[in-house]
């Protein structure tokens, strides 16, 4: 009997998700033993037309990472949706937009301008990319960029969501084990639409730091104070997103004395992680004096980048108002 088919694709993403999959170490051999890897651009040579030639639902499991930034991303998302029995939004970009989604604070044009003109850009002739180029061999085209970065499920229906930037290796391994067991009829897959490879509460649940009632007089950045190893980071004035972030990572960042930045996305049943964080943080500011409150809030240097670092594209607003 032919092995079930496995595919993995990257759209607008950094490649970290691919590395996370490889980072499952010897477990990758189980993948190879149980699956026929048919399409994985980062790991093997494959052509889009090979996928197009497959019958619908032929790919058993497709891990799709990256957001939908351009028309090529969208085309592949639709193609892989059609050809895959189980499509997983894999990693923060596919789930909620992640860092590329922060571009939704501005326009596509401004993104191109910034990328091709900042001081760190080596662009002596001040060129800009052209979507179409008449080369000697014929007309060349590059994918057309969208104004708004979309998440995978804003484009196609998604079977499962696997959060994380990137998903933790132990969670990937668990999910792979589960899928293999399900294929053998030894386990049942969770109901469609479920979040897999993550916990059901928040990072605080996995964090061993000591917590008490919160009253914040000043927000500080990590380099501004020697951080206590035992006390809750938020209580020390460090903006830690653990309380608004889904569990599943074993609180790795707080364990390493760094604040949670929220990569596992919103907690179950939460619609907008950034809004949750903002309303929680504003609730515990310890002042009734408007001027002092302003001063305390000034300690949050980049609210959008802090609270919506991962979730802007999937937030209630999706983007800044279009020009």
């Amino acid at each position: 009997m032919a092995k079930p088919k496995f595919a993995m694709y990257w759209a607008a993403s950094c490649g970290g998700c691919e590395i996370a999959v490889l980072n499952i170490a010897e477990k990758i051999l189980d993948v190879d033993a149980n699956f026929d890897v048919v399409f994985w651009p980062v790991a093997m040579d494959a052509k889009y037309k090979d996928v197009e030639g497959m019958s619908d639902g032929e790919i058993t499991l497709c891990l799709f990472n990256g957001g939908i930034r351009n028309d090529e991303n969208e085309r592949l998302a639709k193609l892989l949706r059609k050809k895959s029995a189980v499509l997983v939004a894999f990693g923060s970009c596919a789930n909620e937009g992640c860092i590329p989604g922060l571009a939704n604070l501005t326009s596509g044009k401004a993104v191109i301008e910034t990328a091709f003109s900042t001081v760190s850009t080596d662009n002596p002739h001040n060129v800009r990319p052209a979507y179409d180029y008449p080369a000697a061999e014929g007309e060349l085209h590059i994918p057309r960029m969208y104004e708004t970065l979309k998440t995978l499920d804003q484009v196609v229906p998604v079977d499962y969501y696997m959060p994380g930037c990137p998903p933790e290796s132990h969670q990937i391994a668990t999910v792979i084990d589960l899928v293999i067991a399900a294929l053998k009829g030894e386990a049942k897959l969770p109901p469609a639409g479920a979040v897999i490879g993550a916990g059901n509460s928040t990072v605080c649940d996995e964090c061993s730091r000591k917590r008490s009632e919160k009253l914040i007089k000043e927000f500080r950045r990590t380099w501004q104070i020697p951080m206590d190893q035992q006390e809750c980071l938020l209580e020390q004035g460090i903006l830690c997103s653990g309380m608004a972030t889904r569990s599943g990572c074993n609180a790795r960042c707080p364990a390493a004395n760094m604040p949670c930045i929220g990569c596992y996305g919103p907690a179950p049943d939460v619609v907008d992680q950034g809004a949750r964080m903002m309303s929680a943080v504003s609730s515990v500011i310890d002042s009734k004096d408007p001027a002092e409150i302003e001063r305390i809030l000034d300690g949050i240097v980049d609210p959008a980048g802090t609270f919506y670092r991962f979730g802007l594209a999937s937030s209630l607003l999706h983007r800044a108002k279009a020009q």
Partner: protein
Amino acid sequence: MSEKVGVYICHCGANIAGVVDVAALSHWAGELPDVAVARDYKFMCSSLGQELIEKDIQELGLTRVVVAACSPHLHEATFRNCCKRAGLNPYLFEMASIREQVSWVTANKTVALEKSKALISGAVHRVIHNQALEPIIVDINPNVLVVGGGITGIQAALEIADAGYHVYLVEREPSIGGHMAQFDKTFPTLDCSACILTPKMFSAGTHPNITLLTWSEVEKVDGYVGNFTVKVRQKARKVNTELCTGCGICEQKCPKKVIDTVFEAGMGLRKAVYTPFPQAVPKYPVMDVQNCTFFQKGTCKACEKFCPTGAIDFKQEDKVVSFDVGNIILATGWDLFDCRRIPQYGYGRLANVYNSLEFERLSNAAGPTGGKVILRDGVTVPQSVGIIHCVGSRDKNYNPYCSAICCMQSLKFAHLVKEKTGAQVYNFYIDIRTPLKAYDEFYQHILETDETRFVRGKVAEVTDAARLPGEEGKLIIQVEDTLIGKQRRIPVDMVILSAGLEPRHDAKEVAKLFGIGCSADQWFIERHPKLDPVATMTEGVFVAGVCQGPKDIPLSVTQGAAAAARVIGLVNRKQVSLEPVRASVNAEQCSGCRICNNQCPFNAISFLVDKGVSEINPALCQGCGTCVAACPAGAITGSHYTNAQILSQIEGILEVELGQREAVPA
């Protein structure tokens, strides 16, 4: 899940139908998904309108009801009851406000129709996610706390005690009686204030159902309607009340005299161990440790030496007592406007400028001058007296509100001055306000018989700088007489400032302590200014008297009695059903981050250390939603305000709104 929604659109006579095309709206609503029936009717709130809904629930088997009409504030309860009568859980009802939010705010019929559609669409989307809720039933502790022992608090306490329930009456000062005990006569009848008050004080002091806690303050209140736990600090009197007979020898023997700034309003002296006035209830004195020679210098103890029962106890400490009550009445009264804040009137600088309480003491037969109206030199009888109305009231620089009592108080002063001194009296007023029973008659009487001059105008200045002949040694009142259109300078010997009433300086803290609201002026906020004047938004906490807003003695007594009646009514029911709109924590999703722990204004949240989660006491919770918003994990849900309900309502509204505009660009 498929629901059968009934949508009912009220014309509210022409209130709504005059602007909103109710027929078109009803037709449109009938086409909405899940809507089984949509009707419009002249007055949905009428019994015929309600019967229409009840009939549909029963005959069409409606599972949800939306009424588009006035506001939930006005008629939500009406329609909830209507659903309940027809066998539908009242929380499966939703209201869309198309009067206050539509027809009353626009005359444009096109936008009115569109906005009505949006609000109804939101309500229909939301109501589908509404859940059936059952009221929470709790027992009521029959004991009552009354805070404030002025006439209002005394009245409330007596009403409740006479009805057979126990009252704890807490008073900050050494004696109950409040401001009324300081007054000379009361308007408009000119009864002696003490003569009508002291019998009530005595009754309160001896009533078997009243526990008097004077020289005491409430420190902490926990709980909810029917079940409050109260902590009261009894300040150390340094007098053992078990032994004290109130003979007054300690006060006689005490060598230290102090200016009495409270009861005598700074006009007289008291001792370091004292009862504020002879008819004080209770009769036990208190020791003013700050001024007691023994406490300050280590010797004296005259009071202890002479006390025949050994009741003086220098070592006595504050005592905190705790007790349970089911209801609370706040009757904390008022502070007098500090006339120093208007420096041009000279109070505190010019000796013979008095504020109203000082004059009350001056005129009071039991006061420091034995009721003689004389100047501060202690001998001179004034030949002319100016009474300035609205001092600190009806003035945007101080208080914008009318203090309600000053006109009548000033007329009373005018009469008393005339009666006692024969002096020429001038009243400087902006408007004379004498609206209640026998008030205007009193004013007319003063006008006709007392030869009092009335000058209509706001006084600019009271000065002792003489400019014209006849002004030397006088206080000159500079005023524009608006009735003759001239500036006038009127020399007088004495000026009485009819100072306004202000909320207690600590009203805000007291409001917070009892979980009620304060207006911008810091008067306590009643549940409804007309229809529920003594209840507050916190169930089981009532307000009465001036702490709710300026008012005179009859109204204060009325409110004290009204609050008592409300409390007695509640206590008689023995149980109370609480609105089931409460927050709850899903322990599975709570990770014990403790963000919510200090958010609850009702102290309903506790952290369970052993389980590492936070928990909400549903009886304490008032459903305000503060913790729901604060919870970063979405682990707290406010029933009747769930995410599903709110988000679907927004979607419903946007569906209509966005239908009018272009879709957002990709």
